[in-house]
């Protein structure tokens, strides 16, 4: 009886693993069949094989790595600057009433404006320079990280702070150790959201006009009606943000090392 149930359970488990592994290949296969059957316009819906060729051409032409590094640079540097600023100000507004009264109302007004809406003014301010692109990514990341840190700092166990006070912990160490690590679980959640936000804002930044980058390449391909290249670009972007999110999740798990 029980072994029978056990067998049925493992069979169902194996089956779902198998179906899971076949999901993407099956999708690609069906797409290939439909695109080749001429039910749809092959220029607008090229088969996966055409997309693959476009991607290989992209790599062989030498443009791919230039585009990849341009986009990676914007996302990474923007993320780091936005994160550093967000954590620093989040600790200050979370910990000091006066700083919070000064800055929080302003931040709460600016935060809900979608970063993409800043594209026009960023072009006015920065033209098509790299600084403008970084500005957009930093802007998007900053508010998310600031809010997560601000809330995290306010939720730090008061008992921990009191215990630290009783032990003579200097002010500086109170902020840099007790408050920061106490808030870390919240900050890490904010950082993970900020990873995907940095990719959203990257798209806006590159669409606004650039000279290299994955999204820039997608836009050029669109203007030339190279649909295969457009889809290849989307796949590259998807893969990149997927890898970024997953590696960040792995890092985050270790960041809160005491749990």
């Amino acid at each position, binding site marked *: 009886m029980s072994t029978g149930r056990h067998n049925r359970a493992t069979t169902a488990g194996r089956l779902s693993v198998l179906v899971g592994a076949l999901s993407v290949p099956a999708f690609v296969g069906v797409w290939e069949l439909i695109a080749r059957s001429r039910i749809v316009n092959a220029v607008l819906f090229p088969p996966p094989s055409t997309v693959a060729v476009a991607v290989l051409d992209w790599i062989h032409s030498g443009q791919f790595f230039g585009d990849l590094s341009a986009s990676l640079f914007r996302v990474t540097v923007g993320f780091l600057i936005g994160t550093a600023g967000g954590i620093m100000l989040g600790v200050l507004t979370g910990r000091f009433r006066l700083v919070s009264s000064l800055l929080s109302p302003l931040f709460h007004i600016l935060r809900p404006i979608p970063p993409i809406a800043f594209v026009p003014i960023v072009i006015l301010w920065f033209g098509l320079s790299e600084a403008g692109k970084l500005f957009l990514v930093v802007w998007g990341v900053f508010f998310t990280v600031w809010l997560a840190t601000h809330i995290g700092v306010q939720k730090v*166990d008061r008992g921990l702070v*009191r*215990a630290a*006070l*009783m*032990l*003579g912990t200097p002010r500086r160490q109170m902020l840099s150790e007790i408050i920061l690590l106490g808030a*870390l679980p919240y900050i890490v959640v904010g950082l993970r959201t900020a990873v995907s936000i940095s990719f959203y804002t990257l798209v806006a930044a590159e669409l606004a006009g650039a000279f290299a980058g994955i999204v820039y390449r997608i836009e050029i391909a669109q203007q030339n009606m190279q649909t295969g290249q457009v889809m290849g670009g989307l796949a590259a972007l998807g893969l990149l943000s997927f890898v970024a999110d997953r590696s960040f999740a792995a890092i985050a798990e270790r960041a809160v090392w*005491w*749990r």
Partner: protein
Amino acid sequence: MVAMMYNPLRPTPPLRLVDAAPEPSSTAPEAIIRVEDLSIVFDVPRGEVIAVDRVSLAVMPGEFVSLVGPSGCGKSTLLNAMAGLERPFEGEVMVAGKPMLSPRPDIGMVFQQPHLFPWKSVRRNIAHGPRALGKSKTEALRIADDLIDMIGLTKFANAYPHTLSGGMQQRVAIARALANQPRVLLMDEPFGALDAQTRAVMQDNLLELRDRINATIVFVTHDIDEAILLSDRVLIMSAGPGRILRDLSVGLPRPRSSAILTDPAYLALKRDCLDLIRTEGRKAFEQMEAVT
């Protein structure tokens, strides 16, 4: 050893419940803790709460004093004032001759919850205080290791707090407070969250520990047994607003262990205490009835 536990300045007849010498103690120059006419008031949405109402008391160096009273009567607030975590609204708190306006490392505190730093191992939790006071890492860890041996957690030196039981965590919290060699150790219902068995073991541990350290201890509890077992003096507080009703000397001989909990002399003492608390409790209750 036993003689050392007694404060020679405060001779008390053994095995009897007596009122301790009243006023002179609060002006005696050698008191290490002096609380004078202390009131603490909290602003709450619907007005004010008087948590501590004109309390005066004195604690002699080396003494073990318990504060006993129903929950909400202001024991924690009074203790926090001695710790410098709460400012006086009126009156004054002096420890070692200086007014308490903010926490000081010569005063240690153990809370009801261990409040260990979850990101630090047992060793580093205990070393935190000495490090914060500028001791070298080696020196701080040496102090920590000595204390870890003393609390019997040698095997757990590198464990993280969440892997320890509640009793073990609280022992670490005590060791962490002792690492700065405080002259005064304040304990706020430190065993209140533990089960009865662990609590009894911890009480015995504290009695032993007390013989080895040189600190004056103020211990908050709502458990009469615990107060009598551990203390030289028991201060009984009224239901809020917090005032001290009685200042009782415990004349039981030391060294003590939880074995005395069945001693007839101890039981007589406890009965007297309970009578007092019951009468006062009824008074407080009737007062409340009258008000409402």
